[in-house]
């Protein structure tokens, strides 16, 4: 297909989308041609999903214009987008599980029938689309019975049934097995051959190289580059995706390490979708060392942290904290064994928004440390809370204010203070600086290093390569539920890490 002569099907010009505190899309221009598979590549937070939500009418941009088939359009809601012929398959499927495939496809369309439900047309369409694109699925199966890959096919059929000429897919392969990925690639190719335009969002280099005709790399809300896939390579894309000036790890002093604070062997666990999220993960962290676990969100990090901390059951494998096996222990027991956890979601899981700041500080220790004769020792609590607020620079008018009044940075400092003040043997920190400003980020880093100096083992799970490279003594990379790389920090470089994070062989 000679793309240089075809007029773009979709043309985004100068799109600006702001959210409180951040510019998610900063004057982005992107054009998509009919008959091409166009990949949108970037790390988490680069602005890919936001941009596509703008195209699909879920968000309205502050500035910029959208052109469809050469005409300027305003998309006030997904209904407008669907009417034009733009369809989207989200990361979280918009299906109704107890209904059948045909019912899901036909829901909300006139083809439903005025009164009596008529799934005949849907069935015919499904069969037809199955033949044309290889999207085979049983129209009478209930959606909850389908595999995730099949459910995705239903979502694609839904869009095609409504006449989509442009199909957007958000991280479509993150929930698929390798065979299903190949199947999807074929579907997308066939759609492109028929003149449709496919945009897919991904962070996976290999797939981008395999399926797309062109790729646009986003970073920090801006377009870094748009290239023809045939003219680039995984390594180049990785560099574009991730590349920035490195903050050197000058702060980190070499440090003698102690015994194993955390030892994990052969962990297998299911994710929320019922697929295997951890496929045999083994790693260890010594006392006094920071091990960085690099990887793009969604490759098993969250599940790993949850299994280590006792919030998710593992199907196989063992966990030791210090010398104690805790594979079957409750969260409380692991806390007693010396484990501390700073979770990814500080508002939803790491703290209780409607409790006061003081009450949040004693979450894990209210019984063990601050109870006397069946009553909470208010004086000891107050003293401890003041200490933490002071030591960890938590800015708040008073410790009796509710936790929800704290800014993100202060909340994170509070959580960190709470966990570290127990002098844990092992600390798991998941995406600890996500969403924090520079000052708070610096502070968290200093604290993690200080903990390391005090002999705490730290597992730093982060998708921020700068962070990992400057703080960690050893770096591991996780991809699709497995550890795919390990190296001493001194030997690590951005390019290699980027490749590993994208699933390529280094």
């Amino acid at each position: 297909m000679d793309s240089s002569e075809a007029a773009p099907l979709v043309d985004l010009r100068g799109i600006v989308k702001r959210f409180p505190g951040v510019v998610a899309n900063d004057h982005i221009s992107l054009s998509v041609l009919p008959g091409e598979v166009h990949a949108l590549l970037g790390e988490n937070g680069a602005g890919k999903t936001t941009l596509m939500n703008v195209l699909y009418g879920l968000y309205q941009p502050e500035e910029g214009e959208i052109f469809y088939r050469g005409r300027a359009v305003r998309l006030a809601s997904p209904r407008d987008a669907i009417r034009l012929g733009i369809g989207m398959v989200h990361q979280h499927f918009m299906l109704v599980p107890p209904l059948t495939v045909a019912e899901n496809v036909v829901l909300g369309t006139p083809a439903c029938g005025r009164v009596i439900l008529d799934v005949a047309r849907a069935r015919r369409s499904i069969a037809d689309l199955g033949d044309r694109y290889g999207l085979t699925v049983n129209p009478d199966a209930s959606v909850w019975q389908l595999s995730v890959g099949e459910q995705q096919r239903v979502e694609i059929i839904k869009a095609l049934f409504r006449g989509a000429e442009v199909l957007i897919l958000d991280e479509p392969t993150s929930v698929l097995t390798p065979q299903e990925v190949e199947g999807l690639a074929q579907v997308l190719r066939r759609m492109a051959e028929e003149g449709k335009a496919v945009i897919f969002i991904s962070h996976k280099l290999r797939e981008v190289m395999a399926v797309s005709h062109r790729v646009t790399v986003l970073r920090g809300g801006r377009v870094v580059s748009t290239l023809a896939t045939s003219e680039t390579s995984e390594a180049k894309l990785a560099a574009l995706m991730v590349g920035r000036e490195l903050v050197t790890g000058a702060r980190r002093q070499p440090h003698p390490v102690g015994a194993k604070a955390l030892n994990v062997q052969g962990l297998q666990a299911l994710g929320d979708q019922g697929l295997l999220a951890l496929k045999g993960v083994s790693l260890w962290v010594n006392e006094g060392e920071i091990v960085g676990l690099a990887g793009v969100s969604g490759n098993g990090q969250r599940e790993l942290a949850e299994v280590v901390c006792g919030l998710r059951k593992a199907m196989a494998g063992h966990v030791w904290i210090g010398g104690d096996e805790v594979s079957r222990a409750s969260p409380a027991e692991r806390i007693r064994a010396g484990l501390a956890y700073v979770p990814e979601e500080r508002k939803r899981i790491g703290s209780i928004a409607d409790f006061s700041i003081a009450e949040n500080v004693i979450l894990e220790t209210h019984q063990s440390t601050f109870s006397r004769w069946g009553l909470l020792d208010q004086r000891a609590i107050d003293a401890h809370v003041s200490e933490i607020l002071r030591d960890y620079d938590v800015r708040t008018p008073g410790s009796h204010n509710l936790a929800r009044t704290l800014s993100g940075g202060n909340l994170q400092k509070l959580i960190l203070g709470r966990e570290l003040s127990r002098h844990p043997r092992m600390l798991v920190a998941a995406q600890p600086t996500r969403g924090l400003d520079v000052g708070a980020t610096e502070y968290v880093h200093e604290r993690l290093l200080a903990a390391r100096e005090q002999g705490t083992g730290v597992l730093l799970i982060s998708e921020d390569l700068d962070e990992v490279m400057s703080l960690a003594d050893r770096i591991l990379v996780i991809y699709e539920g497995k550890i795919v790389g390990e190296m001493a920090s001194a030997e690590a470089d951005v390019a290699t890490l980027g490749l590993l994070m994208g699933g390529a062989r280094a």
Partner: protein
Amino acid sequence: MSVLGLRLEKRPSPSPALRALAPVATAVLALAASGVLIRAAGGDPFEAMAAIGVGAFGNLQNFGETMVKAAALILVGLGMIVAFRTQVANIGGEGQIIMGAIAGTWLGLTLIDVHPAVLFALVILISFAAGAFWGAIAGWLKARLQLNEVIVTIMLNYLAIYTLNWLVRGPMRAPGLAGGFPQSEALAQAAWWPRLAGTRMHVGVLLALALAILVTVFLTKTPWGYRLRAVGANAQAARYGGILVGRTILLAMVISGGLAGIAGAGEIYGLHHRLLDGISSGYGYTGIVVALLGKLNPYATVLAGIFFAALAVGMEAMQRSLGTPFALIASIQGLVVLMMLLADVLVEYRIRKA
């Protein structure tokens, strides 16, 4: 996306004054609504209000009547506070009251030669235990099997009602009683809870007030109370922090049921002195309304309990003296609930045209 052409718009900063005012406004609106209904019934609202006021507080006797009702409502309401603050909807107050009443009566009829003070203590314990057991069934089913506690507690209510029904007509029926009323033997007078100030007010009133303080201390100053509130506020975070959520839910139902059980004992030992049908008289449901009006705060619930009791007693008196129809009470309760919900929404949101 709106049916009535209305939508809710969040207020940027709801004022705390407004929030505190909401229950008071609700109570005032409830009185106003009573006035409207009384007028509809052909009575004079102001006369009626006066009659209600006098009926509830006019003299010591009436005040005693009000406080007696209030005691039961407060006890049940306190139990509801414990449950609802843990995010467990205990609709089973009726059944828990009944079980407490049954257990208490049985003990009193069995232990004849026991010092009244000792009996008092034992009755409190056993009625608490019986109500706690009844509540624990639902609590355990929720903790272990995630069964909806609303349905289970309602089913348990009827199981308790029919059990009582059977007991007072069968095994616990007073022998050879004239008129064949279904009721148990009367408790020995020595066992009756002492009355205060020559009214019908019994020791249970003091107990209710004391428990209000105890429940407050329990919730705010003990580790168990901390855990209950944590689970109610954010069960996931509580779990992350090492709290055993299932056990906490069970504890909430145990305490909630137990307090209702004590209310049941109070109705027997303080008022009726024998087991009868209908001993719970809807307190199980009214207690929920009282706790909600009191915004799940023990001290405010005491006031709410007195308010409802006054309304009930006053309306009965009004009906007697003015001959106007009664059966207003349940309607007012329903209106209070709905108006309170509306007030809560208005504190947080403005209602706008869509």
